[in-house]
């Protein structure tokens, strides 16, 4: 067998003809491999890949398939049996007022969390990339909340937003402003959990942006300085283009993570007020499965969420690839 089919299966451009004058590629040599060697390579590759594939199938894909299967049943989580009910769960979710509110909460929370944590993380990274006194200590402080447990942060922030003794209530009271009803107004409650989530995860976007900033090409900054470019122009024309890969990476990971927030909401509002005031899709999965005992319906919400995330991720990857090609 020649090397051509192998290159083709790799899907790379190496299948095209080499430019004139290029020395002969070792592909010809590989094609001369005796059949025994090739079989050994395949077996070796399989031996390395198989354990991971088996683990992936057992612990990722099989639960995923099981979840999709359960989404077509009426399974009560305490019951040993479940009945097939077709697409009833899907019809119920897509026609329910509660689900529309949950979807809206998810979109608002995710959008605000992604935008907020990326903008503030970038701003902090730009600031702490400067040669400032005590910047290492400040960097550590900014990153520290990211390693805290979400539930602990949620409990701590209850004291920040508490309507009777909270820090926010106290600070606003000092300037004669009445604190909003964070725990009773659904919009303020969503704002409260979003702010808490951003605070907790700011360290992540900050450290990725900081690493990207420190890896940028210094000569481009120097060239911009020689050209007397303004700070804004320097950022827009020199720094930002070099941060695009980090931004795309953060866009995907922060979006996926914030889409799946649970601990902060559970400790601060339990999805309330007014029932679903801060309920996002992941929290709805929990409520339906464990509170309402409807594991089948919970699986439906989880499946819809999985498909939504899959589409969003594919679109993002496609956009990123186009950006690279451009």
């Amino acid at each position, binding site marked *: 067998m020649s090397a051509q089919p192998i290159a083709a299966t790799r899907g790379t451009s190496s299948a095209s003809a080499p430019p004139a004058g290029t020395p002969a590629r070792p592909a010809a040599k590989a094609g001369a491999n005796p059949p025994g060697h090739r079989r*050994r390579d395949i*077996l*070796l590759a*399989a*031996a390395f890949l*198989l*354990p991971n594939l*088996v*683990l992936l199938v*057992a*612990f990722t894909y099989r639960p995923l398939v099981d979840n999709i299967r359960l989404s077509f049943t*009426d399974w*009560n*989580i*305490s*019951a*040993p049996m479940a009945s097939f009910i077709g697409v009833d769960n899907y019809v119920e979710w897509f026609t329910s007022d509660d689900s529309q509110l949950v979807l809206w909460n998810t979109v608002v929370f995710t959008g605000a969390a992604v935008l907020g944590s990326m903008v503030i993380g970038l701003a902090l990274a730009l600031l702490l990339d400067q040669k400032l006194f005590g910047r290492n200590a400040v960097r550590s402080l900014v990153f520290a909340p990211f390693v805290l447990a979400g539930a602990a942060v949620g409990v701590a922030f*209850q004291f920040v937003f*508490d*309507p*009777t*003794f909270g820090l926010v209530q106290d600070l606003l009271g000092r300037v004669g402003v009445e604190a909003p*009803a964070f*725990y*009773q*107004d659904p919009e303020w409650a969503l704002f409260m959990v979003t702010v808490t989530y951003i605070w907790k995860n700011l360290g992540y976007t900050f450290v990725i942006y900081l690493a990207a900033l420190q890896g940028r090409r210094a000569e481009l900054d120097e060239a911009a300085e020689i050209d007397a470019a303004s700070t804004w122009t320097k950022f827009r024309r020199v720094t930002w283009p070099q941060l695009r890969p980090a931004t795309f990476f953060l866009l995907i990971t922060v979006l996926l993570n914030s889409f799946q927030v649970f601990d902060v909401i559970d400790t601060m*509002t*339990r*999805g*309330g*007020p*007014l*029932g*679903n005031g801060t309920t996002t899709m992941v929290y709805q999965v929990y*409520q339906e499965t*464990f*509170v*309402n*005992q*409807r594991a089948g319906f919970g699986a439906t919400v989880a499946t819809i969420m999985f498909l939504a995330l899959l589409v969003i991720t594919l679109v993002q990857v496609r956009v990123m690839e186009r950006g690279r090609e451009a």
Partner: protein
Amino acid sequence: MNPLDRRRFLQLSGLTLGAVGLSACAGTGSTEQSGDGGPVETLTMWSNHPGESKPVESQLLDAFTEETGIAVNLVTAGASYEEAAQRFNAALSGGELPDVVIASDVTWFNFALNDAITPMDDLWQAVGVDTAGYVDSLREDYEFEGAHYALPYARSTPLYYYNKPMWAAAGLPDRGPETWAEFAEWAPRLAAANPAVAPMVVPDGSNYLDWYFQGMIWTFGGAYSDEWEPTFTSPESLEAGRFLQDMYRQNFIAISNDANNQFGAAQAASLLQSTGSLGGLKETAQFEFGTAFLPGPPPGTPTGGAGLTIPANISDERKEAAMQLIAFLTNTDNTVTFSQATGYMPVRQDAIDDPEMVAYLEENPNARTALEQLAVTAPQDYARVFLPGGGARIGAGLDRITIGGEDVETVFRQLGEESQQVYERDIEPKL
């Protein structure tokens, strides 16, 4: 490197698959524990340690081990009854089951309905449990289709807590209001005498407002349901809903996510809260407070709290040993110990009459209120405790009519329709 021949590859693959298979088995476990007929040496008990009871639970379990030789592994199964139920549900789906698990008033029924927990009547006979010693109403709370699925353990009722200095400032007698109408009369006086303080605070819908309001709706002659039939829209139920809404709008009743703290910090003149909060409030409140029955006329108070259950899918030997443990934890002496440590009601009549308990109640009159109130309690409405998600559903509805300001009739009609739908979908086919 040695060449990898087919035989070595197959061996390697076989080993890999075997290891993965074994790890997968370890992860999912089995719902059937060993039942070889031999003596049980170790039991596992899952609890959320209600009323900060972990120290006293450990103490009682050590005593059980000393008496029987059976070691007990006490596992914290969550921070609340709901979390303990979630963990048990997860175990039912393939994890390792405990031998004894705590179940609240709203979680045990679903387990019983789906045959996840054991009917205890035969075990009572086998182990020789003195069931007559339990307070009848608390024991019968766990009866379903002629069988009992739990024994009462950390049982409670709501109590009316009031701040005595604030009461005195308003010139009120040293007692709680006897009716909700009397509370409505007192509330303006309390508000006037104690500016910027709510005359009463109750937990919001995410924190069991549905439990506290149940007593109120009864005193107006209404109910959440008459057995399985929702009665949210009866004139009496609607009147109770409008009363709550009116009190909230006039700032006579505050709805809080942390009502205990608000009362404990003297930001509210009175509080509806569980008897299980008595111990904590004694430590945190920096003022003298009293306890009273919930306003009547009776019955104005539901029972609540938790019992101990035994999973269905464990061996008969383990079930008997588990029953022995539950009987021990709720015997007369241990009931006295547990009750004094936590503030929960004694679940046995003979514990109430025990000289040590009598002396304790003489010294702690606030703890006695719950016991005396037991005579005017009633079992909870099916719509709250037996319908899946009933408590959360009603709590959200009560939030909507108070902090959301929505029309009571509209919200209660929806609650009735949703409850009926849940009954027809999740309960009726299994009855």
